[in-house]
């Protein structure tokens, strides 16, 4: 299976969680330990090795903060 | 072009085309229908587009779209239809878009009647829409003057980036008179570098907008617009002063009514009474300066209107409390007769001299 990598532009994240619902691997979560400059818990991925680079998270992100790469 | 007979409404159309108007968005209402009819027939022959909108509101917003794209554009209506256009006029002023709007006014309020009236003076000069704005308002008194002012109006609109109103009463629209299309003095007009263009210059995103959500941005925007108004007040005031030197009474009248007053002046001369006339050609800016010099013989101003009295407010401001300001008006679609004005003047003077 393809390996993917997602990058969040954290400062623009509004913590809405739509990316979480879209992720087939369920590896995205809101980082409760972190507050971005807007004051939200930004979305993040811990187990990046499980990412398949499908891009669904980016498709659902209303704030255009996600970049997806595949290799 | 040789002299010919034209109805006011079609003369407006011919003048607009001569001024380079390429777009007209119309909607039927009496007594201005000959104008959209003329434009629907003649504009396509002159490389332009006539489009009948779904309503006056639709039409004025199409004007907004076309003016924002840099076109010379016009719309017309009559009183209740102009009321519907007020939203758009306010937006055009806010977005500083040039266009010409014709009102061949009828009586009101409400559906009123279709006969000529001047009850839209407030609507035209005080802004009928929301917010802080004015529009230059021209009030022609003959078809020839209509033809000249319509052409002038397009230049004024472009010079100051503002909508300009031609306020003719229904009589001006319906009356037949001889006209000649003279080449008017062309102004040096600014480039429309703010307008959307057919060919986009990269990296120059343009916005046609009246929304300034921050008060600290809205205030300077208004100050800029009112700065233009100051220039318009200085440069564009037009009026005619007739027979005022040594006049017993000075009438103030515009449009059709000024013609009736002129007739009354002749009749009064036979009785040895001198009636003067101040005829505002621009209703906004109002020609306050015309009232500066008053002969010592003059006993009163007389505002004559086809309304219950609207311009009289400006006459009172201009008079600044110096003389009595009298009023004679026939509202509701009645055109006053010269003899009625004669009688009113005699009444003011306490009977025949």
């Amino acid at each position, binding site marked *: 299976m393809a390996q993917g990598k997602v990058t969040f532009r954290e400062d623009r994240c509004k913590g809405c969680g739509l990316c979480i619902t879209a992720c087939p691997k369920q590896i995205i979560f809101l980082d409760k330990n972190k507050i971005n400059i807007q004051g939200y818990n930004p979305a993040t991925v811990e187990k990046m090795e499980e990412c398949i680079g499908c891009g669904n998270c980016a498709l659902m992100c209303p704030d255009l903060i996600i970049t997806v790469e595949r290799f | 072009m040789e*002299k010919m007979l034209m*109805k006011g409404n079609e003369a407006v159309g011919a003048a607009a085309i001569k001024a380079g108007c390429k777009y007209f968005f119309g909607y039927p209402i009496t*007594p201005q229908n000959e104008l959209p009819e003329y434009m629907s027939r003649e504009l396509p022959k002159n490389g332009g587009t006539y489009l009948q909108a779904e309503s006056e509101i639709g039409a004025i917003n199409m004007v907004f779209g076309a003016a924002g794209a840099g076109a010379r554009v016009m719309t017309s209506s009559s009183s209740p239809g102009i009321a519907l256009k007020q939203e758009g006029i306010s937006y055009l002023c806010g977005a500083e878009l040039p266009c010409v709007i014709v009102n061949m006014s009828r009586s009101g309020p409400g559906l009123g009647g279709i006969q000529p009236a001047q009850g839209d003076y407030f609507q035209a000069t005080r802004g009928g829409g929301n917010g802080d704005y004015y529009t230059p308002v021209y009030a022609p008194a003959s078809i020839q003057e209509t033809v000249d002012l319509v052409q002038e109006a397009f230049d004024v609109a472009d010079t100051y980036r503002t909508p300009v109103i031609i306020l003719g009463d229904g009589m001006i629209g319906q*009356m*037949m008179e001889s006209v000649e299309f003279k080449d008017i003095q062309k102004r040096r007009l600014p480039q429309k570098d703010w307008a959307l263009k057919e060919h986009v210059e990269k990296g120059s995103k343009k916005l046609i907008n009246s929304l300034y959500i921050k008060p600290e941005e809205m205030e300077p925007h208004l100050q800029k617009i009112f700065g233009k108004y100051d220039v318009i007040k200085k440069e564009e005031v037009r009026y005619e002063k007739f027979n005022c030197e040594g006049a017993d009474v000075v009438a103030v009248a515009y449009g059709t009514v000024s*013609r009736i007053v002129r007739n009354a002046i002749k009749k009064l001369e036979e009785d040895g009474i001198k009636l003067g006339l101040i005829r505002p050609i621009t209703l906004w800016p109002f020609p306050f300066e015309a009232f500066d010099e008053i002969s010592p013989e003059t006993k009163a101003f007389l505002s004559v209107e086809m309304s219950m009295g609207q311009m009289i407010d400006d006459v009172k401001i201009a008079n600044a409390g110096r003389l009595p300001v009298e009023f004679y008006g026939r509202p509701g679609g009645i055109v006053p007769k*010269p003899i009625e004005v004669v009688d009113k003047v005699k009444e003011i003077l306490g009977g025949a001299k």
Partner: protein
Amino acid sequence: MLKEDRRVRIICGHYGSGKTEFAVNYAVKLAAEGGHPMLADIDVINPYFRSRERSAELEKLGVRVAASSTSATSLDLPSISAGVYSAFDDHSTDAVIDIGGDKGGITVLNRFSDHFSSPAEYDLFFIINAYREATKNASQITDYIDIFENTCGLKVSGLINNTHMLKSTVADDIINGYRLAFKVSEKTGIPLRYNSGMSGLYEKLPEEIKSRFFPMELFMRDDWMS
């Protein structure tokens, strides 16, 4: 003179050519000549300057007026009065039918088509004013005549030279219009019926125009108008 014309006189032309003023003058003159004129105003084009505005004056002068079914003279509904039918149906009347200008005006005539009887009863007079933009030359006028005839199915039976510049009309204006109308008449074979103009101009006109001169008074224009 007017009694030589056919019983139903329909006055058509480019709008602004002076149809209404001519129609009103014609009806008044018919009354003066002892006819029983009825002026049917079926102008649904113009909101102002329609003969119905002068009904009261006209009735005094012996002209019956039929126009709108509403009593308001200043209404922009068509609401043609059924009384207009009598212009066609009542053979004792001398009818003068004042229609609105252009094709829109003459179209209205069609709604009376089933009341048209013998063509011998109709005169369709075409008014020419050489100072109107769309009737400045002979070919423009013949085009108009074609359109009118095709629209209403009647034939134009007479030309009226009503060339004028309102109150500033001079004899030369009438003469210029006469030349144009004459050219149209030669081209189409339609007789030039009248040359109309303000009565005061009669003396200044050449004989050929005088013989068919129709003197007019202004009913429709207030004294402050040009």
